[in-house]
């Protein structure tokens, strides 16, 4: 569902403008970083990589009993190419999809690039780095970390979209509903993304490990050891993780928020609820209907915002601090 790019006017102009500025800033930085890392190879390499991501997004991969899904590819791009080049490449894909393939509004490019390129690439990269620390330093570890990161990237993307809706909704659909639906559904979609991305990275590691930016710190000896982890195990693990996420998120929809609400009141969100006036959207009040839900909504929004900031910001910081060694 997220693979659908927002059309023009989907978000209020204020939010659309803010996302456009944010995306532009990150893309400009990514372009500079790509120039540094790839030097005079950036045009052909980023170009063909973008062609690959585009083609990979068109791929129908089986999910269950004949139903198929599609790859988002943001985390995959980051793990293969590094977060800067990865986000640039997917950003180019989103631009071309809007301009040439009529998929996505021109004025919605800001939020589309943000949700489909920036957030999955940097957020995915951050989760990837985290997962790598917890997993063995081997090719298998890289593959496992990819699965987790790619799955998380989809959820992060959905969360980002929901937060944008909170501030800039163009229809009176409450944040609760959007967040619950988006994040819940995408937790499941994330399983497919995680498993598939992991398999792709596994294949690339087997052929040319130097082309996996996320594995560049591994010595050749560490790359050789590749216990074949069953994809089925991944999928089942993913289902468990997704179910947990969905259950947590469904607390929102079920209006049974005791735990979270208590936390929210203790943290003082309740006080802010009344004074809270979200800019721009005439439907802002719908985002947080009723005082009880409003508290909870704000708490969830706040938590999601924090998580997103940590993930994407963390990814950016990690990317800025660790200048990757020269690409082969």
């Amino acid at each position, binding site marked *: 569902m997220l693979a659908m790019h927002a059309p023009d006017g989907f978000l209020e102009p204020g939010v659309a403008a803010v996302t456009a500025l944010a995306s532009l800033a990150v893309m400009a930085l990514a372009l500079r970083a790509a120039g540094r890392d790839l030097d005079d190879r950036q045009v052909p390499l980023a170009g063909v990589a973008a062609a690959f991501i585009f083609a990979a997004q068109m791929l129908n991969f089986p999910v269950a009993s004949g139903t198929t899904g599609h790859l988002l590819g943001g985390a995959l791009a980051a793990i293969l190419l590094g977060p800067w080049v990865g986000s640039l490449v997917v950003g180019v894909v989103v631009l*071309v999809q809007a301009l040439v393939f009529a998929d996505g509004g021109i004025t919605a490019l800001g939020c589309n690039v943000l949700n489909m390129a920036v957030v999955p690439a940097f957020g995915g990269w951050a989760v990837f780095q985290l997962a790598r620390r917890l997993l063995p330093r081997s090719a298998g570890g890289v593959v496992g970390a990819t699965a987790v990161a790619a799955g998380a990237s989809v959820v992060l993307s959905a969360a980002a979209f929901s937060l944008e809706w909170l501030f800039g909704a163009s229809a009176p659909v409450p944040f609760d509903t959007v967040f619950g639906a988006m994040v819940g559904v995408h937790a499941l979609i994330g399983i497919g993304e995680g498993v598939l991305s992991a398999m792709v990275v596994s294949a690339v590691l087997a052929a040319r490990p130097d082309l996996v930016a996320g594995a560049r710190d591994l010595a050749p000896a560490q790359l050789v050891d590749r216990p074949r982890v069953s994809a089925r195990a991944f999928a089942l693990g993913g289902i468990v993780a997704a179910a947990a996420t969905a259950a947590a998120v469904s607390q929102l929809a079920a209006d049974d928020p005791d735990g979270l609400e208590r936390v929210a009141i203790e943290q003082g969100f309740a006080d802010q609820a009344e004074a809270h006036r979200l800019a721009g959207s005439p439907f802002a009040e719908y985002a947080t209907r009723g005082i009880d839900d409003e508290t909870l909504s704000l708490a969830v929004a706040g938590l999601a915002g924090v998580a997103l900031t940590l993930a994407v910001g963390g990814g950016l910081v990690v990317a800025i601090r660790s200048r990757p060694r020269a690409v082969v």
Partner: protein
Amino acid sequence: MGGGLRHRGALHLLVERDSPVHRARPEAKVVALVLFAVALAATPERALAAFALHGAVLALVAGAARLPAGTVRRRALVALPFLGVAALLPFAADGPRVALGPLAVSEDGLWAGGALAARAVLGATAAVVLTATTSVADLLAGLAHLRLPRVVVGIVASMLRYLDLVADQLHRTRLAMAARGHDPRWLWQARPLAAGAGTLFVRTYERGERVHQAMLARGFTRRLPDLRPPPAGAPAIGWAAALAPALVSLLVAVGAILR
């Protein structure tokens, strides 16, 4: 996801005709598209007349370009998923209810859904008209004229150039698998497919390295040469004429806002 449109790459999108729209400067057409998109986004959601006018403007341009209606309609179907979302809005949205047949739906949701549908369809159709009347090479030249950084234009050019090849290779990989009886239905059976995709990434990257070598062999240093064709005298259709339809839409949108 508009799969049908994308599957064959970007090169078949141009509909060869001789029309003022085809002959217009590509940079003007791109600016027109952007302005039209702004008009769509800015039009207040209950301004039915404004949206109708936008549609009329678009239809006029498509007509002037002598584009077959069926082709335009078919390609604009990429917006179909959002029509689905638009249809859901009256049910998912809050606010005062209104009767829709036997159902009570959100009135705001109805308007929002309608506006969403209009914007999605009109925006997609406008982009379709652009690519149906502008070749890839001209489109890229237009972007370069608009001062998009040369590196970005280069990357987009490279992407579009090799998109068909890469998509073809992926397609053939799938065919080869199917020919050997591999019909995956479950996620964990997707390994061969994913392996194929991984191999394709490697091959594609290596092609990128070879293209880089070919560029070096033809004297390329860091700076991309400026390959915009020299302006060939007075253009058949000036900027004013090219932008006129989009500006009309913009004025209509502003009018609707001020009302």
